[in-house]
């Protein structure tokens, strides 16, 4: 048997691990997800305060440390979309914000549809469902929730009217969301239990009891409520067909029904990190550039006609792992993800701007904490 080749070094000759700092391999495991060709490893976050106590590293929560390291960088911001980097925060909090954005931020959506006449081919219940999904451009913070025993009033209900008719002899028409007409005074349909008015001056009772007209309120006086988009198809009417209905929108949350979700979607991904473990030159560099489908790598000239591969666009890496597939490529390229760097994207449906949505989401998490504190004390 061949003798072991590794030289024996006395333990006191080994270099000291500096106190208060993790050795590089542990630091890498703590801060990065390693994406190897078979599976990602070190995906977990080590949260326990004493996890590195034996190395003299304090892993407990230090708010000052958090404040120094936390950063937000806005990448794009438009009326509906937003992308930003959130750096120095744990995945559990990033995920809490995402979950709140999708399921716990309130918006207004059509919940009740009173159909007076529907002779179109689309059934009443399908029509009502389609109306529910139409995003409304109105700030939900100005309204109250309507609970079971509440009467619909100007503070918790928005009423829309839709009356569309296709005349006989004409061609088919489309009913678009711009035909939803806001009724600031509330419902115009009288209650079916209401007797014909004896006194012509008294207004008959309708399905809502508004105390005042909504457009007299300062919030809506020059900002009429309506669908966010004017060109959403609701139904198609053939000759002689007609739809007459009233739609009542109320405040709700995404966990009850997705129509109340203020975001089309909200998601995050961890920042990809592509590292070249050794210099890749010549033909091998060309091969690497060709391997990547999203063009992460580039070739750089280092003089005398020599070419070297560089990582030009790590952010666009999808971690498809095509570049570490096949013979020994994983010795040249390492794919990693930064555990505390989140690329967060919010797509708003239009009720509120994405940056407002995010601050509202953070506020909701604060409220949840406050609730626990008050119940404990």
């Amino acid at each position, binding site marked *: 048997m061949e003798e072991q080749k590794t030289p024996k070094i006395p333990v006191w000759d080994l270099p000291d691990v500096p106190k208060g700092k993790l050795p590089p391999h542990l630091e890498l495991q703590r801060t990065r997800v390693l994406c190897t060709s078979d599976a990602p490893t070190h995906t977990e976050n080590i949260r326990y305060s004493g996890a590195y106590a034996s190395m003299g590293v304090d892993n407990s929560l230090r708010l000052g440390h958090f404040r120094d390291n936390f950063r*937000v960088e*806005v990448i794009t*911001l438009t009326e509906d979309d937003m992308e*930003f980097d959130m750096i120095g925060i744990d995945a*559990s909090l990033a995920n809490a914000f995402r979950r709140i954005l999708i399921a716990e931020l309130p918006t207004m959506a059509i919940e009740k549809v009173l159909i007076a006449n529907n002779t179109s081919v689309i059934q009443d219940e399908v029509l009502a469902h389609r109306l529910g999904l139409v995003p409304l451009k109105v700030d939900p913070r100005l309204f109250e929730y309507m609970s079971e025993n509440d009467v619909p009033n100007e503070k918790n209900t928005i009423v829309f009217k839709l009356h569309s008719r296709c005349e006989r002899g004409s061609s088919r028409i489309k009913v678009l969301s711009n035909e939803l007409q806001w009724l600031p005074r509330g419902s115009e349909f009288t209650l079916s239990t209401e007797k014909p008015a004896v006194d012509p001056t008294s207004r008959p009772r309708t399905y809502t009891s508004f105390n005042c007209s909504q457009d007299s309120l300062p919030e809506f006086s020059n900002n009429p409520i309506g669908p966010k988009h004017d060109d959403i198809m609701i139904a198609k009417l053939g000759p002689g067909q007609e739809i007459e209905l009233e739609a009542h929108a109320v405040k709700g949350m995404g966990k009850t029904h997705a129509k109340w979700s203020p975001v089309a979607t909200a998601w995050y991904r961890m920042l990809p990190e592509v590292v070249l473990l050794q210099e890749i030159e010549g033909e091998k560099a060309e091969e690497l550039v060709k391997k990547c489908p999203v063009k992460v790598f580039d070739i750089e000239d280092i003089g005398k006609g020599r070419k070297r591969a560089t990582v030009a666009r790590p952010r666009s890496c999808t971690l498809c792992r095509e570049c570490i597939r096949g013979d020994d490529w994983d010795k040249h390229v390492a794919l990693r993800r930064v555990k505390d760097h989140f690329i967060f994207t919010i797509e708003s449906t239009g009720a509120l701007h994405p940056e407002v949505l995010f601050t509202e989401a953070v506020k909701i998490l604060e409220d*949840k904490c406050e609730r*626990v*504190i008050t119940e404990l004390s």
Partner: protein
Amino acid sequence: MELGSYQDQSQATFSLTDEDHTLANSLRFTLNQDPRVTFCGYSIPHPSDARVNIRVQTTGDQASEVLKDSCQDLMLICQHVRSTFDQAVVEFKNKKGLDAMNIEP
């Protein structure tokens, strides 16, 4: 919300109604980073009940106090996130406004 505690105040299970992974996972994060906590974890006993159970065991301090402190920490984190975010948005809007005006420096 109820507190299931025994003679020993240092360990308790807290049952939070109308909460889910959103709060429980964030609280587990802050609790685990508290040096006074020896163990903490949460469970959702049934997926159709809106309820989470959070177990906290400490080195000796009262578990409810530790949980309260963790909530406080989480709130402070949230407040910092919010102010940092608002500031970043304002900076971005200012920068975009300047770029749109196209002023030479």
